[in-house]
């Protein structure tokens, strides 16, 4: 696990399609995030870079994850982990991305 460092890490984040179009960006964005690198720190940095994403991944105010979104890293579901839990070193090192994924929900669409 990475300890505190003055050098920010380059964190790769994969966005779902509709947030890419909203933010007018590509599938993957790279964010400078200071240690400790957590879901909260990554989302803070993401929302600073792309303010139009505020409220679309986590609620305004409470910062609770929106119910139909999930966070994955290193093939594990981080959605129910504390947002302050340090992410795996491979994410911190930029080897693996943090994935923000919309729940698969077909069914009732028009």
């Amino acid at each position, binding site marked *: 696990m990475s300890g505190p460092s003055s050098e920010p890490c380059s964190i790769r984040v994969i966005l779902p399609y509709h947030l890419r179009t909203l933010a007018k960006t590509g599938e993957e964005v790279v964010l400078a995030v200071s240690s400790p690198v957590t879901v909260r720190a990554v989302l803070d940095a993401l929302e600073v870079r792309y303010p139009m994403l505020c409220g679309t991944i986590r609620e305004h105010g409470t910062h609770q994850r*929106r119910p139909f979104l999930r966070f994955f890293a290193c093939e594990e579901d981080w959605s129910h982990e504390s947002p302050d839990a340090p992410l795996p070193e491979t994410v911190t090192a930029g080897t693996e991305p943090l994935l923000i994924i919309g729940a698969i929900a077909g069914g009732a669409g028009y």
Partner: protein
Amino acid sequence: MSKVRVLVGTHKGAFILSSDGKRKQWEVNGPLFAGWELYHLKGSPVDPNRLYASQTSGWFGQTIQRSDDGGANWTPAGNKFTYEGVTGTHQWYDGTPHPWEFKRVWHLEPSLTDPDVVYAGVEDAALFRSTDAGATWEELAGLRCHGTGSHWQPGAGGMGLHTIILDPSNPQRIYIAISAAGAFRTDDGGKSWKPINKGLVSPFMPNPTAEVGHCVHHVAIHPSRPDVLFMQKHWDVMRSDNAGESWQEVSGNLPTDFGFAIDVHAHEPETLYVVPIKSDSEHFPLEGKLRVYRSRAGGNEWEPLTNGLPQENCYVNVLRDAMSVDSLDECGIYFGTTGGQVYASPDAGDTWAPIVRHLPAVLSVEVQTLP
């Protein structure tokens, strides 16, 4: 020559339909915001190139979009809708208290005088206002917190504030309507509100003539007579001649008085349009015939308008915000269906033709008449 621009919100994006004053040939642009629900788009009466759009998603929540060039380019605006003060509760479907929760913006109403001022009607029912072109939003909490708020209850589609009418003759007066709380009016710019539901009768309610609880579907006015209101209620078409102080039924000879949309001719304040729907259990036209009904007498006497509309096997719905009129010399009438058609009549309803036939389900239609 004048032009018209039709702003169409659908379940899967927005479309902009443009034509000259003849309204025969149409250019279709879209989908904008493809894959998102566009509950409503509307242009500023002061600056027609300033458009606002409500973009929502079950996954990603609410976004407001703004255009300053008539819809060619869009910029996300503010999407933080926070209820003022102690949120409190309204009634849930089973009558138990339920906390107010923001879900989406149903309707955007730009100011009549300032393109940077816009009102938003939201679910759970509340009215918000932005004075900075949608960047930030402030609740006009006097509506939700007035005495009856804790008794409001959602309709089947949610507890949405879907109608906002700004009185062109009195900037302090605003009318709004909520499903299923009823209609309300402020005379002090939104600080205080009163229910205006006297004369409405809703047999499904424990007290059919209660002060609040009526499922008002839509309200329309003519700008020259803002004290005269026309309402399509869950059942019943209603009229008020005193700014909502009292209502009279004007369903008259309609084949069914259930429906959602209602609008008024741009130049004839006593000419109204509704689209009768079979019932609250069967949301489609009677007998599979899509008919707009027009009254030239302010209600009670209605004539079916069918020329160019499907008269067999048509089982679409026309939702509350999906009808609009232009203000060209010969008034144009427009409506969209849940089957994805947008119909236009360039002659006040005498003849109709589809502009488009295969859009996603249409949620809203607004028309801009451009120089």
